[in-house]
């Protein structure tokens, strides 16, 4: 059975990549703008751009979990979608194992990349085709990536991965509506892991689930990571979940990375005023903790017309004149601790 997988892994295109020193995924000055066009009778013209992702630098090392956190509309999901080649970037590049995934390439090369880069989506209710049985849903990645695998082998592999995510054989013959939210998320995970990828991008995998079920899925993801030596990019808006799962955390705001550092460091030595406010905003499940929290005024500005300079300056408690004029670069303050701020807290 191993033979089929090995045959495909033989494509030699990542020879220059050194897993010990180079990041497995590297995003360089990534931008993704969505045009808004105005329609007249005959013509349409672009009147504005939604700058969903506006210059993101980010890297993922082999075997780690990077948590990507931020409020809705800050560009977390778009970043992930570009990183797995579901969207074309407006500017910038995505390197996977040292190869620019948007350079011209053959169909085989493209599949070889996509086979190693998979994604799990947020909403287990809308990300599975309701008319297809679980068996067919999970078999689909094999049909695409291993077309000459026999039906029997595909089937046995489907059952194998179902068992890994904690579902039973008979579940293969059921339809998505027969499952609960947590079980559906297990199917989504099985679908992504079926073809043994190296990197999995998890887009809010637990935010639609109840707390008790959420804990089950988080544990499952952890077990699978250990078993298959996976690299995760974990997107969430819940900082306590992020803290629990990640080795490193990147905080995003209005299409830009504000702070990126090892998890412990971020919570102990929070440097960016936005991260400070975000941490302070979380309600703590301990009634005896009484604290003064920093409450940010106003809403997240629109990404159509983001503020000049530092995008956070209109809501920042430390903002000075320079913040509205000069965009701060993401700089390494301490080893591994990157901050984009003129007046960091450390």
């Amino acid at each position, binding site marked *: 059975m191993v033979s089929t997988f090995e045959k495909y892994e033989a494509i030699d295109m990542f020879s220059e990549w050194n897993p010990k020193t180079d990041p497995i995924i590297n995003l360089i000055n990534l931008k993704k703008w969505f045009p808004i066009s105005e329609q007249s009778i005959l013509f349409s013209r672009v009147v504005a751009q939604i700058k969903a992702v506006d210059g993101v630098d980010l890297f993922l090392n082999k075997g780690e979990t990077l948590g990507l956190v931020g*409020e*809705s509309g800050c560009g977390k999901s778009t970043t992930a979608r570009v990183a797995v080649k579901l969207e074309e970037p407006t500017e910038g590049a995505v390197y996977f194992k040292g190869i620019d995934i948007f350079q011209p390439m053959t169909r085989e090369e493209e599949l070889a990349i996509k086979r190693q880069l998979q994604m799990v989506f947020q909403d287990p209710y809308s990300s599975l085709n309701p008319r297809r049985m679980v068996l067919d849903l999970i078999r689909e990645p094999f049909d695409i990536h291993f077309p000459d695998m026999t039906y029997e082998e595909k089937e046995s592999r489907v059952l194998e991965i179902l068992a890994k995510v904690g579902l039973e054989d008979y579940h293969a013959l059921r339809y998505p509506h027969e499952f*609960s939210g*947590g079980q559906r998320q297990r199917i989504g995970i099985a679908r992504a892991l079926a073809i043994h990828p190296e990197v999995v991008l998890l887009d809010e995998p637990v935010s639609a689930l*109840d*707390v*008790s*079920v*959420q*804990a*089950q899925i*988080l*544990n499952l993801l*952890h077990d699978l990571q250990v078993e298959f030596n996976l690299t995760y990019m974990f997107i969430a*808006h*819940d*900082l*306590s*979940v992020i*803290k*629990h*799962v990640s080795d490193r955390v990147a905080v995003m705001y209005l299409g830009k990375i504000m702070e990126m550092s090892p998890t412990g460091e971020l*919570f*102990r030595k929070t440097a960016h005023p936005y991260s400070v*406010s*975000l*941490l*302070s*905003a*979380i*309600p*703590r*499940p*301990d*009634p*005896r*903790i009484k*604290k003064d*929290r920093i*409450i*940010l*005024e106003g*809403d*997240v500005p629109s990404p159509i017309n983001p503020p000049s300079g530092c995008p956070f300056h209109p809501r920042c408690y430390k903002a000075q004149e320079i913040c509205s004029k000069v965009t701060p670069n993401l700089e390494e303050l301490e080893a591994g601790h990157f901050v984009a701020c003129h007046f960091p807290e450390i």
Partner: protein
Amino acid sequence: MKMAKPILDVQDIYTYFYTESGVVEALDGVSFDVNQGEPVGIVGESGCGKTVTAKSTLRILDKNGKTVSGKIIYKGIDLLELPDLQMRKIRGKEIAMIFQDPMTSLNPIFKIDDQMTEVIALHRDCSKKEALEYAIEALEQVGIPDPATRINDYPHQFSGGQRQRVFIARALALQPSLLIADEPTTALDVTIQAQILELIKEMQRKHGLAMMLITHNLGVVAETTKRVHIFYGGRVVESGPTEDIFIDPKHPYTRALFDSIPSLEKDKHRLATIPGLVPRLINPPKGCRFHPRCKFATEICMRERPPDVLIDKQKGRRVQCHHFEELDLHVDESTIKERSQIIEEA
């Protein structure tokens, strides 16, 4: 301590939904109370009967639902016995409700002006002009900038957080005595959630409102309420002062629920999980509804419904468990210390 008088006293209510696939026993003997001017939390996972409780209280259940027995005493009157016409005067004027989703709870085709002044004029028995003044005043109180102009806008012109503010303003303009807030911050981002929670707390104190805060977020409960009722499978499994319940839970479900949330304070690698799923209420488990998922369950739990035991009369602590006396579910000192230590550092 002077015993506060309950403004709302729910006594042993049973609410059933009649569906094609059977009778859903959504509320199965629910009793709890809310005191004058007191914020009370209703906590539980989805499908445990939190929202049905609120809807039963206001008698706004869907057509196939009915509260078949029990009493809901509000200021000495049984709401279930009240004629429809008088019930209408209770809704809004006496008991106001805020809903989860600010996107759908305001009518998109009417201006804020129309949506607010109509109800105010009706319930407060004043002219349209006075109603407009009250409305602007209420909007100002909840922190909508330039309310006299903004009142002429449509709901889509407000952001999610602002819409929730408008909704709160509309509820409070009628000067109710009891506010039911059903997951008021669930749809909002953390920083906006912090703003809205602060606003709700401030309004609650300022107007001396009794409040029923329905939520699944234990952090929100810990910070906002004085007392909690924990719901599971259509029953109240435990009630008492928030602090006591968080530190010394008596029901195995409460403890398991607390253990399964990843928190900023905990630093464990695996989360404790509750096996299985939230029960379906069409054919609920016999005896204690938590027994299939409870690690302490014995034979009696499968057979008999646990009695509602009042443990501490002064504090109003109640628990529904056969084994609460034998179990020690106290959160140990080290966990508590760990929690508060990290907080102090932050």
